[in-house]
């Protein structure tokens, strides 16, 4: 660092995202105290995040009481879809004209104020559709599910390695479309690419249209919750 003679350097050593990290920890404590397991759901726009939550709600969460916080740049369409299924939802609009590309802990804390946490077992936080920005921001989650649809291509794990590495479970969605993709998509290669970038993540293959894999998804949610909260 270049310095003037009359200047001095004050050591700071602080994370730039300190405020968000502290808010995330406070969220985690609050949710754990209320017996709520929090899953951050991320994926590209159109990957099938909301559809997965709808499928979860339609199955009554397999006995787990569900809630959701949805985030979007504009509209409350996702929240409306989930609310229509009787699930308590709180919506965050990050700004109608190109504002925030991710959810942060502070916003999630405020949204959670509107939810009956004590009557909830699992809270799904559906992030803004984006495979880059949400990676950096902890909202106070216990686990992260990354949804990637077969129509996005098998190279996406290699293009967005940090997002895939941040996931505890990778849900490959819309698998019923695989026959229509023929030579344009190679499922084995997608599995391998996910494995290459994040060998520790669980991998599920789901179609909310046919119901394939939905049981396995619910079983994963239940098991992950039990591991964290007992």
């Amino acid at each position: 660092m270049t310095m003037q003679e009359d200047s001095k350097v004050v050591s700071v050593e602080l994370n730039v995202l300190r405020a968000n990290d502290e808010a995330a920890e406070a969220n985690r404590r609050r949710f754990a105290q209320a017996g709520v397991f929090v899953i951050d759901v991320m994926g590209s726009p159109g990957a099938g995040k909301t559809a997965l939550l709808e499928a979860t709600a339609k199955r009554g969460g397999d006995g787990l009481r569900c809630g959701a916080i949805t985030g979007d740049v504009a509209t409350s369409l996702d929240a409306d879809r989930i609310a229509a299924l009787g699930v308590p939802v709180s919506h965050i609009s990050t700004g109608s004209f190109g504002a925030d590309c991710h959810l942060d802990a502070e916003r999630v804390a405020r949204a959670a104020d509107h939810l009956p946490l004590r009557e909830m077992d699992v809270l799904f936080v559906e992030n803004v559709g984006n495979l880059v920005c949400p990676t950096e921001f902890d909202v106070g989650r216990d686990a992260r599910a990354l949804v990637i649809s077969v129509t996005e291509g098998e190279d996406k794990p290699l293009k967005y390695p940090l997002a895939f590495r941040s996931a505890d479970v990778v849900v490959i969605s819309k698998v019923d479309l695989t026959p229509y993709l023929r030579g344009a998509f190679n499922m084995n290669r997608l599995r391998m690419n996910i494995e290459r970038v994040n060998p520790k993540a669980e991998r599920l293959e789901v179609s909310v249209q046919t119901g394939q894999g939905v049981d396995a998804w619910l079983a994963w949610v239940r098991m992950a919750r039990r591991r964290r909260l007992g």
Partner: protein
Amino acid sequence: MHEVAIAENIVSEVARLIAAGTVTGIPRAVRVQVGRLSTVVPECLDMMFSVVSEGTCLEGARLEIEVVPARAVCQVCGGGFDISQPAFSCPECSGGDIRIVSGTELKIRSVEVA
């Protein structure tokens, strides 16, 4: 992405330290570490910083960015290696159980004051 938010955070963290008396004097420069694996583009952060620092305690201060390389250690064979491409496995033993030891930093190291 979102370098505006990161730049704003840098300004607000330093403002907080000034209010607390930890940093006294006129800030001339802020040194930050940006890891290669963070989703922050240094050039973009630099640009956004000059914009968002206007009218704040950091107006006119330089932003000095130290880019930290991405390195990992293999939990299987113990070998250390640079991560230069999105294959997070050990180049020696191909093990997938690796621990990232640097490259995810987004840190304010120090503030130079006059």
